[in-house]
């Protein structure tokens, strides 16, 4: 059995204007030590997915259906007390903005000791020793001094390394990282990503990495999940998705990168933009932007307009697209 098994997750936000469906029918698994990337543009629901993994969805949001099984126990139906034993301890989270995550009025050491003591019965001295050891693991220079410093005294890259140290503090099984390097410069990003991957490999920690950057996914993960308008539209081994994407949206996303065309020529743009979650198109949510929504005679395809596509298996990937399904059916016959 997989370490983490998410099935048919359905998350909604009850707003005054009506209900917004942020996640629909999201299913995936994560094995011990596996690194999974969740990619998508803003509004695709990838951050909601990350928060839901720890059942951190707050009102007006709620989990309307589906399950999040961690070692067989459903986090979606767990009591608050049991959830606290999992959060930060077995599954920890790294957020996007390192300045917002750290408490500005506590020293680094106090924050680290606090979370250690919340989960384990140990003395402050022991906790400090563990904290120091973790800071060394993330290559913080002069860690003894850093323990007594405050977040504002450190640079962005240093803060994000401390957050990684805190995420590793209780030797979790899974780290959920929501755009951990978006706020950082490229050279610092490369450093943090390498560090995160090395630590996950060394300690056999599973990683769920939320990002909009396909380059980062390509370098960090073994499997990738592509999201669009609250649904998973394609998932499979990262290399296969990068080299041979099947879904028209994934293809469009990859082809839109400047690296994909000769310098100076027009970029391959996807027309239109991601729909608002309160107003997703019928059928396949991508159909208004999809170049394959017409049939051979130039008429709009009825199935794209009306039916939500089911997953079909192409190679090692699962793809939700009517066009891909038809192509596979043609090949089989």
């Amino acid at each position, binding site marked *: 059995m997989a370490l983490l098994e998410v099935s048919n997750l359905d998350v909604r936000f009850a707003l005054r204007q009506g209900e917004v469906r942020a996640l629909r029918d999201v299913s995936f698994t994560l094995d011990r030590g596996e690194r999974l990337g969740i990619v998508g*543009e803003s509004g695709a629901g990838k951050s909601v997915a990350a928060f839901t993994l720890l059942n951190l969805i707050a009102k007006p949001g709620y989990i309307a259906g589906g399950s999040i099984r961690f070692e067989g126990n459903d986090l979606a139906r767990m009591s608050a007390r049991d959830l606290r034993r999992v959060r930060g301890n077995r599954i920890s989270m790294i957020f996007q903005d390192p300045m917002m995550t750290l408490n500005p009025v506590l020293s680094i050491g106090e924050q680290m000791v606090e979370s250690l003591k919340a989960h384990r019965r140990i003395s402050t001295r022991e906790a400090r020793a563990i904290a120091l050891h973790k800071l060394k693991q993330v290559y913080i220079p002069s860690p003894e001094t850093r323990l007594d410093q405050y977040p504002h005294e450190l640079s962005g890259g240093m803060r994000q390394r401390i957050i990684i140290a805190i995420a590793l503090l209780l030797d979790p099984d899974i780290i959920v990282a929501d755009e951990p390097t978006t706020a950082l410069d490229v050279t*610092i990003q*490369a450093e943090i990503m390498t560090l995160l991957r090395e630590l996950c490999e060394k300690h056999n920690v599973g990683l769920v990495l939320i990002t909009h950057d396909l380059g*980062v996914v*390509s370098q960090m993960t073994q499997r990738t999940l592509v999201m669009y308008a609250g649904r998973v539209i394609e998932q499979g081994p990262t290399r296969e998705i990068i080299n041979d994407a099947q879904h028209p949206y994934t293809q469009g996303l990859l082809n839109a*990168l*400047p*690296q994909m065309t000769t310098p*100076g020529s027009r970029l391959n*743009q996807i027309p239109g933009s991601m729909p608002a979650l309160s107003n997703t198109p019928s059928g396949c949510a991508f159909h208004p932007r999809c170049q394959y929504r017409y049939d051979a005679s130039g008429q709009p395809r009825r199935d794209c307009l009306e039916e939500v596509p089911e997953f079909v298996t192409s190679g090692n990937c699962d793809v939700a697209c009517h066009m891909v399904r038809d192509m596979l059916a043609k090949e089989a016959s």
Partner: protein
Amino acid sequence: MNAVAAQPSPATTSQNRAEAESLLEIRGLYKHFPLADGFLEQLHFEKGRLVRRNEQVHAINGVDLSVQRGEALCVVGESGCGKSTVARLVMGLLSPSAGEISYAGQRIDNMRGKRLLPYRQRMQMIFQNPYASLNPRMTIQQTLEEPLRFHHPDWTTPQVQDKVADVMASVGIDPEWGKRFGHEFSGGQRQRIAIARALAVDPEFIVADEPISALDVSIQAQVLNLLMDAQAERHLTYLFITHDLAVVEHFGTRVAVMYLGTVCELADTRSLFARPKHPYTQALLSAIPRLDDDRPEHVRLSGEVPTPVHLPSGCVFHGRCPHAMERCRQEVPQLIVADDGNQVACHAVEEGRL
């Protein structure tokens, strides 16, 4: 300030060649921001004595650049390297501490008011954040009409409206949008409106400060295409500020790499990406997350960017440079022209160590 005046202008010789076609010339540009503005804020109590200290952020420290007519000069660098300050100085939104900025042969950095007006029309700016650069209380129509009414006070309303309709059509804005307000649009649409506003007065030179950084990947491509189309149709010249090297490789004619307020390498795009010379450029290029390799070997830089308040002596990069030697700690490297015509400010390159 004496030190500023004594600085030689290293790239002058190479720029003389290009002078004929260059649209914008920046010479020996410095910009310092005082950390404490008021007299009382500058007072500190130290060792039992009251001392006055006037510390400054050294945002730009001797930048020489020229932008040729018709090209897209990209300025890249990490946060705090001074790339946006260069853009703002060029547009006259800030005034330089020292140095000269000339546009089409005319010095503009010391101009004020009415004399600057014609240049304000010829040079336009596109800002990074389309959520902040549109006035929330104006309709799109008003937003687009404003620069036209300002620069052409003699135009009649139908003339202005015709021009707005033209520019809307050319950047792919639905005329229906005119009645709506900025908040009703997505980031990509807003940036389209901001571009339309810049193009409305028919400028020849556009300074774009991270115009696509706030946008999603699929929208970035749309906006970049729009900027490239506008360049081809209107023969625009761009000064393009960005931190995204993939965009630079695609869009730029030439690239200036900045670090801590100085230009460390200036080269045409293709040769910069093929053969980066400066150790910082090499590190920067190796840090781009690529799609093809899943085990990248990036150049690891030690330490972090120093603060621009107390600049390092010698080469500003020496603290993080794997090739730094005694000379780098002492002497500020000047931009030298390499055999392929590209410019690089590095002692190691000059001495042939790299």
